[in-house]
């Protein structure tokens, strides 16, 4: 499954970057979201997959016994998901503001800060 996900993540990266290279601001944000998913999955996959036991120590036990899922990537990704949301919201509002001000979402039309 790791190998399969490697291709999925590669596809997400390619799609994300292609979207970010478009002139539409909205597509830029879509690209950012895809890149966020791709990076989370990358960390998750590189930490190896296991479908056996989540990193929850059973009641009464003191420690986890193999095989169990690596808790560290999960902890990293958890905050990344929430932060990704915050960044998305900020980017969306920024783009909307930009659109309402400049009446365009073409990134080529906004190469300077002085015209607005």
């Amino acid at each position, binding site marked *: 499954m790791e190998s399969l996900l490697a291709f999925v993540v590669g596809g997400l990266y390619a799609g994300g970057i292609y*979207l970010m290279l478009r002139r539409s601001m909205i597509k*830029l944000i879509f690209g950012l979201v895809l890149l966020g*998913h791709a990076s989370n999955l990358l960390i998750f996959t590189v930490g190896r997959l296991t479908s056996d036991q989540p990193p929850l120590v059973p009641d009464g036990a003191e420690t986890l016994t193999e095989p169990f899922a690596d808790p560290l990537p999960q902890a990293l990704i958890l905050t990344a998901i*929430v932060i990704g949301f915050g960044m998305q919201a900020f980017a969306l509002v920024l783009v909307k503001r930009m659109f309402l001000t400049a009446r365009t979402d073409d990134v080529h039309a906004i190469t300077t800060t002085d015209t607005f």
Partner: protein
Amino acid sequence: MREGMLSRLGLSTTQTKGSLAGWIIALLPLSFFVFFCTLIEPVAMGEPIRISYPWIPSLGVELSFLIDGLSLLFALIISGVGTFIIIYAGGYLAGHHQIGHMYTYLILFMISMLGLVLSDNIISLFVFWELTSITSYLLIGFKHEYQDSRYSALQALLVTGAGGLVLLAGLILLGVVGGSWQLSELFGRGEAIQDHELYLPMLILVLIGAFTKSAQFPFHFWLPNAMAAPTPVSAYLHSATMVKAGVFLLARLTPVLGGTSTWFFILTIVGGITMVMGAFLAIFRTDLKSILAYTTINGLGTLVFLLGLGTELAIEAAIVFLMVHSLYKGALFMVAGSVDHETGTRDIRELGGLGKYMPITAVAGGLAALSMMGMPPFLGFVGKEIIYKSAFGVAEHHMFLIMLAVLAMAFVGKVLTGVSAGLVTVSPFLGSKTTTPKNPHEAPISMWLGPVVLSALGLLLGLSVAFSKGLQDMIVAPAMGAVLHEHEVHAKLALWYGTEPETLMVFGLSMLTIVAAIGIYIRGRGTFASISQRVTMPWNAEQGYQFALNGMQSLARWQTRVLQHGYLQGYLLVVAMTLAGFGGLAFFSQVGLVAPVWSPQFPMVHEWLIAGMMLVATVLTIRLDSLLGAIVALGVVGYAVALIFILYAAPDLAITQFSIETLTVILFVLVLYRRQTITHLLEEEIARDSPAKRIRDLLIAGSVGVFITSIMLAITSEPLVSELKHFFAEESVPHGKGHNVVNVILIDFRGLDTMGEITVLGVAAIGVYSLIKLWFARDAENNTS
């Protein structure tokens, strides 16, 4: 703490605007001075005092202080001269609306300078070194409403700051090669360091740092410009203390870096050129402060020159001259400031006969000038004699020709300095009264006290060597011992050394210097000024500075034009191509392609389905013209990610991903709902990019994808060895007292990271809030007006 208190005290004086505050604040440097005086005897008798506090122990940086003969002498000069400077500043700037700033900066500078000379750790020494540059910048730019003030301040900062960076490189080399960051430990390792192959680069870097700070040729140009500062600053920083930091550093590092022939030649040549050039240029100036600035360059050159000679006599000469110079130059600067203050001009052509109106200032100036000329029995005479003695002494180590060159340079420097002494005192105070912008009268006591005490000290200390050994045994010998890193050092100071042929020769030369100086002054005083106006230098070092500065600015402009073009896609292209290009190059040359591993278990049907769904949804996100359709496709990717989290034992992630995905859809709908215009633009967008451009982007994006996939295949083909995985699994229950390991990591083991992350979240939310609210406010304002 002390600085903070004083800045408050300094600021509060803006209300009183009198010189009274100066007297009170001067108690601080005075108390330092008294404290350092109590250390003279213990230091002279025994071992140097070391005080140390850990600062950054992992880097070997400590806040440690070394009080030996050399640093104590500097500390005495800094605190002693500082006392009078603060009092003087109170009188000089009385009524100035920012006099509080002046006190604050001066005290800050004094603390930094004391830190610099007392540091034992070379990194903390460097930090204090830079602090003196910064306070010097503030002080030169004190009259910040004038453009030349700002220009000079920036120039001094850039020259000394750039030198400081070079010095840092040199000091780090020194610390690494020497294996210690403590000067007191490095002293004993001089030979090992000098044999090291990095000795030469290290030496050159350190020397550039010292030369820029001490205004040595060809970095001397900033010092005359620094005279834009108020006179108390010039007197303190740019003659008595800060500019001597470079000299101090050379003296301090003499046991470590000194004594080689490279050291000898660089220091004597640079110091010699600076010495002669400074003295020569000084006599053609007409501005009192300008003359003094060039003679300061001469003095600094002399000190570097003597340290370069490096013999015991030369070091003794350097130590004595250091004291002589600080005393007379500090006094003369203050006298020049008083003249300027009371008459409104500093041009020697407009000044004359002031002695009648400002008798005390005139006497102080006269005494200082006599010491500067080296007239017996002033301390200046004692200093000059030892300089000549050490110049003769060169013959023991080097060729006769070198000795002659050294002697000639010293002689020319001394004669011309003597002429300058005449220019700054005889011309303004004697002769006939001229009309000046203001009617001259005696300066207030706060402004004559300093010059009188300092110049009188020049006389008294000179007299004292005749009947007391206090100066030579208590001050000079311990300082020499520190520079030479020897315990048994004997200094010999005297006004009359006896009738041996050699000492008679020295005495004769000394007298000849005075006669020559007086002769040249009388013959030439009227013509120097007119010569300088006719002759302009075809090229000078300051033009080099300008050239470098302009070059740097146009380089920055060019680079900004090329890199900061404002096209977002351009930036992204560079990032993506760098990642795929350089990253790919490194990866494929080192690792190469790794085939996918389908064991131990071939992916099951549902896994293929999820993967396929994600890729299809990605393509749809790109291809769909409808905004809503694209949002849905994006949502599919997100939910599929959540599915993967469920399948592979990450329940926490799955819940979070599901919640976030739902919120994201709400978010998109809120933002984009009913924005047909944007939807419309999405369609327009397709027409915007040419097919060729889209193929190019596809290729670049695709190569990044291939790169990422190859990396992941390579990583996952090897088994994972993770100590952390087991660490967290084992420690979670006993230490984290929680069974959900992910949660324990988040809120306990890596709690600090989480704290940073939630702070970022808060900032992002407030960003959203203010973007919306502030625009509402602006729109409302526009509508009403």
